[in-house]
């Protein structure tokens, strides 16, 4: 009977059609789940409102959590559209974690991989926006990964010569991610409810956790910044080695200017907290 009972609640909560069937013909519907008349009798006279409560609670539980994690996306759709998205997600959910932050990731993944619904016509950036909002949450709660020191905060002071400057190793903030979006997702605001309010345009965003305040920030990245961070992500290398690799890639007309620009970009990354500091050896 335990299995029958759990199967009944599973259908009541996870299969939206069940509540309608119970409303239409409770005796017949209960017969599908419980063999014993005694069990069916226990549920036959329960006020419908109470059965409905379990179905509603699924929405309330999911709504509250996901709504808070995707505030912009939520603001762009109506209550019915939002409920529809959540219900569809709930039915097709793949990994089914009990941890809230993992549910947010599941929701974002579901939208990226499975969602083919009508909202995409009105909000063509829906998938990218969900990915961006999920990335924000992921970085905010990313498990701390302490960086071993010592690190020089002021690399210009730590290096006595230009050669020494190039021999320093920039250490990247471990809580960052570089993403390229086809839509300017960081500029989409609450209330942008039509596609016309957002123009498509490729944007590279560096999303990172500020090492001091621990809040999440973003930096619009040009190709040079994106390349620098990309190289730093692959492992610790000296500034010289990083710039040399980029010189080979870009073959600039003025290599000295390119190096100056690269050093300037690293300064910006350090100021923003994307680069935490520099190893001197």
């Amino acid at each position, binding site marked *: *009977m335990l299995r029958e009972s759990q199967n009944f609640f599973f259908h009541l909560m996870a299969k939206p059609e069940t509540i309608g069937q119970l409303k239409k013909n409770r005796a017949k519907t209960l017969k599908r789940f419980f063999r014993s008349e005694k069990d069916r009798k*226990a549920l036959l006279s329960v006020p419908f409102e109470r059965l409905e409560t379990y179905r509603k609670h699924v929405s309330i539980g999911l709504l509250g959590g996901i709504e808070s994690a995707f505030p912009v996306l939520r603001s762009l759709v109506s209550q019915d559209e939002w409920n529809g998205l959540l219900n569809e997600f709930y039915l097709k959910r793949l990994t089914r974690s*009990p*941890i809230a932050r993992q549910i947010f990731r599941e929701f974002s993944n579901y939208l990226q991989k499975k969602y083919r619904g009508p909202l995409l016509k009105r909000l063509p950036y829906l998938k990218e926006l969900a990915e961006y909002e999920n990335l924000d949450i992921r970085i905010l709660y*990313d*498990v701390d990964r302490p960086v071993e020191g010592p690190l020089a905060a002021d690399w210009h002071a730590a290096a006595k010569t230009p050669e020494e400057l190039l021999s320093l190793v920039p250490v990247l903030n471990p809580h960052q991610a570089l993403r390229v979006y086809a839509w300017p997702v960081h500029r989409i605001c609450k209330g942008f409810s039509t596609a016309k309010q957002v123009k498509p345009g490729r944007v590279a965003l560096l999303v990172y956790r500020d090492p001091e305040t621990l809040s999440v920030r973003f930096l619009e990245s040009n190709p040079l910044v994106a390349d620098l961070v990309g190289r730093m992500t692959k492992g610790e290398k000296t500034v010289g080695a990083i710039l040399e690799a980029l010189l080979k890639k870009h073959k600039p007309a003025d290599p000295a200017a390119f190096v100056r620009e690269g050093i300037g970009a690293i300064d910006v990354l350090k100021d923003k907290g994307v680069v935490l500091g520099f190893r001197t050896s």
Partner: protein
Amino acid sequence: MTPKLGIGLGLRREHYGSLLSNLPSELQWFEVAPENYMEIGGKVYRDFRELSERIPVVAHSVSMSLGSLDPLNKTFLKQLKKFIREHKIPLASDHICFSSYHGVQFDDLVPLPFTWEAVKHVAKRVKQVQDFLEVPYAVENVSYYVPAGAADMTEWDFVRAVVEESGAGLLLDVNNIYVNSVNFGFDPETYLRAMPLDKIAYVHIAGHLRKRKNFILDTHGDEIVNPVWEILDELAAMTKLSGVMIERDANIPPLEEILDEIRHIEKILKEPRSHAA
């Protein structure tokens, strides 16, 4: 051996600022949903760690799904054990219910049928969880709205049987007793009298939402009402309680308002049957 806790509060992020700047002496411990704090870093983790270093924390999970026919979630168990060790948590708890089936999380606490089959099943899993976590473990009576099938016994006999069969402590929720007494029409005192008082690890008290005369929703979103205070008072007169805490999960008021309720608990525990209502 369950620890002596005193009076506590469910930790909410809305209160972090007040708690970190001036931790009230009335609060002796916090209860947290580990699902919100496991495997995280950043500011929330930093603030939580600071508080957990100053005051004991009890881990009250909602996802163990102790009564489910699905296998226990080993990943979740391992993460919980790590969390318990990291924050030196002296006691963990969850609910006598199931909250997932066929791998689907319900985000809700779903009742079990009051049968011997369910008692054996849930008690076996509680033992497994307790053995794995290696800290005292308590199980909570839940509120519910729909019976999970025909019953072999009353709700209070079911709760007592699970506690006795599993060897776990009892986390007795007096608001849930009241909610169920209204929804299913029984005398809360009958329930209290059937409880294994020596097994009570701690007590939950909370507010609820009365939808209509005979239907209450267990929301934890309102102030505690007199009939619930009276159940706590009655219980405090029956046995010395080692821990009582307030659950407030919705419509979170300023900390000072909750402290008024905390002070009321203090009075009840000190002099039962003279301060309720």
